[in-house]
């Protein structure tokens, strides 16, 4: 009964257009009214204790650092590096674009920031090189998924907090799967450009030119080293490293690149804070939600039900992938993680799937939702920065989604891809 009230009212409120976090909170409050030994003050305390988290602070700081870095010249400099090294590679400018997204992902914590920064410069450039504009837009939107795979990643921090796993380990776990996706996208682009005859090979850059490009971009390229080096050198926590990243980004863009004035800083901070508030509102509500579903034994019942049908982990994982892909198309990613993790994780770990590996799977699956209509954040962003009609993008995106889904299957059924780096560097799981 309580379960029906919780999920029923959540679904109704969600569809009525109540903000996601508020819908979850209101549904939880309704459910609490039916649970005798849970008071409303428990809900209110959860609102504060959920947010009062040292780890979550990194969400706003990485968002802010990415915003500061992506203003102005950083993306241009990173693209120049990608072009110097991959300009004459198979796939030409498409490969350059995807590599630039990969580089940018190491600075930015979100997917659509990556799409915006790289798409703005590369979609017109690709169109000039003979690429179909909508195809180029779909490519950049897909490569934006790298933004959440390559650390730092805001989505990963949220999963780590919800699943109570280490942020540092999850960050490492995302790197190889991110590269797998990049390779899949590059291969598909090579195939398409050959077929479409767009592949005009660029001239190979000399090592001198390459050095020049790297030199121009060195402060942007150094940032991931500072951030990740600090974390994995055991010097700072991920949250502290996000504060270092903000200061680094501010220093570089104010004093070195001179592309940010102090007067702009207030509005940028406000924008980042609002963005983060709008997504983290659900974290406060999720504390009570998590307690309610645990009290109602929902994860337990669900896993008993599913494992009663089959205990073949491959079948169960496939079913979960389908579920995630569907949910990712219409629900905002962080909300999906916060709601689904406590429900699914107990069952998944019972099947012997590692929580870190499951985090990577979940994040990739939901990232595919970023580019799937009707509500793909990256698609909207690509449409906006590329000046491409949304419907044209939708027609082109389907095959990219298939390619990413293929990569998702590889990542899902090959756990070592995700787990080898955490094992190697952090002794994870041993």
């Amino acid at each position: 009964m309580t379960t029906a009230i919780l999920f029923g009212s959540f679904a109704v409120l969600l569809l009525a257009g109540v903000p996601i976090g508020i819908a979850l909170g209101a549904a939880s409050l309704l459910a609490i009214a039916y649970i005798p030994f849970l008071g409303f003050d428990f809900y209110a305390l959860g609102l504060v204790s959920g947010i009062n988290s040292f780890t979550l602070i990194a969400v706003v700081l990485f968002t802010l650092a990415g915003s500061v870095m992506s203003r102005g010249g950083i993306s241009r400099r990173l693209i120049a590096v990608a072009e110097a090294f991959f300009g004459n590679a198979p796939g030409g400018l498409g490969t350059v674009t995807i590599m630039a997204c990969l580089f940018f992902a190491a600075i930015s914590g979100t997917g659509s920031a990556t799409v915006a920064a790289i798409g703005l410069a590369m979609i017109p450039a690709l169109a000039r090189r003979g690429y179909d504009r909508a195809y180029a837009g779909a490519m950049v939107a897909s490569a934006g998924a790298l933004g959440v795979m390559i650390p730092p990643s805001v989505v990963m921090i949220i999963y780590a907090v919800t699943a109570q796993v280490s942020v540092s380990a999850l960050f490492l776990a995302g790197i190889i799967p991110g590269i797998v996706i990049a390779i899949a996208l590059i291969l598909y682009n090579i195939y398409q450009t050959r077929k479409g005859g767009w592949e005009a090979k660029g001239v190979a850059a000399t090592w001198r030119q390459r050095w020049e490009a790297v030199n121009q971009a060195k402060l942007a390229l150094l940032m991931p080293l500072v951030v990740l080096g600090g974390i994995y050198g055991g010097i700072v926590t991920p949250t502290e490293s996000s504060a270092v990243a903000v200061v680094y980004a501010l220093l570089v863009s104010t004093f070195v690149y001179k592309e940010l004035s102090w007067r702009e800083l207030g509005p940028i901070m406000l924008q980042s804070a609002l963005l983060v508030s709008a997504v983290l509102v659900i974290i406060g509500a999720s504390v009570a939600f998590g307690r309610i579903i645990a009290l109602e034994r929902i994860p337990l019942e669900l896993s008993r039900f599913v494992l009663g049908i089959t205990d073949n982990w491959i079948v169960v994982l496939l079913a979960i992938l389908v579920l995630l892909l569907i949910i990712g198309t219409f629900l905002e990613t962080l909300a999906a993680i916060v709601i689904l993790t406590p429900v699914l994780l107990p069952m998944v770990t019972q099947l012997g799937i590692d929580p870190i590996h499951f985090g990577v799977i979940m994040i990739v699956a939901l990232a595919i939702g970023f580019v799937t209509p009707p509500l793909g954040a990256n698609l909207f962003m690509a449409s906006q920065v590329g000046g491409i009609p949304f419907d044209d993008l939708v027609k082109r995106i389907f095959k990219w989604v298939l390619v990413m889904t293929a990569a998702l299957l590889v990542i899902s059924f090959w756990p070592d891809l995700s787990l080898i780096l955490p094992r190697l560097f952090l002794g994870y799981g041993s």
Partner: protein
Amino acid sequence: MQRWLRLAERYFEPIIIVTSLGVVIVLLFADVVARFAFQTSVPWAGEVARFAFVYMIYFGISYAIREKRHLRVTILVDAVPSALRRWIMAFAEAVFLAYSVAVCVLGVQITANAIERGQSLSATQWPTGWLYAAIIFSGALSALRLSHSLWMILRHGQEPLRENTALEDEGIQREGAGS
């Protein structure tokens, strides 16, 4: 008076949000520097940073109403005829309003409880009630803003909902787009 109200409506939350965020950055960075340069640490830095972060988020939740930043699922709302849409939107806004009032009232309750029991935060010894009070302010400010937008929907027909998808960094990117 009118002018002051208008300024407060526009700048009250932003001042607290940006200040809190600034405090978070400065404290965490200072703590890292202190550890590096002086082999010492600021024991209360983490606690105050979390405190400021809670205030940043809860004032942000209220200001996000003004800026239409909240993430909504708009599939149904977009699909229905506009006469019906107005009522659905009014319903959604009313739910949000009722929720905010509930949060405000519950906030008063837990704050009063914590102060009565004399609870305090571990490093700074600040009363825990001050931390809890963040949701009182958030609930009250949200309720004010939502009463206004509910009134606008009922009185003047619909108010455009923000798409729930172009969420990440959109404002920033739009501004930074030209450079």
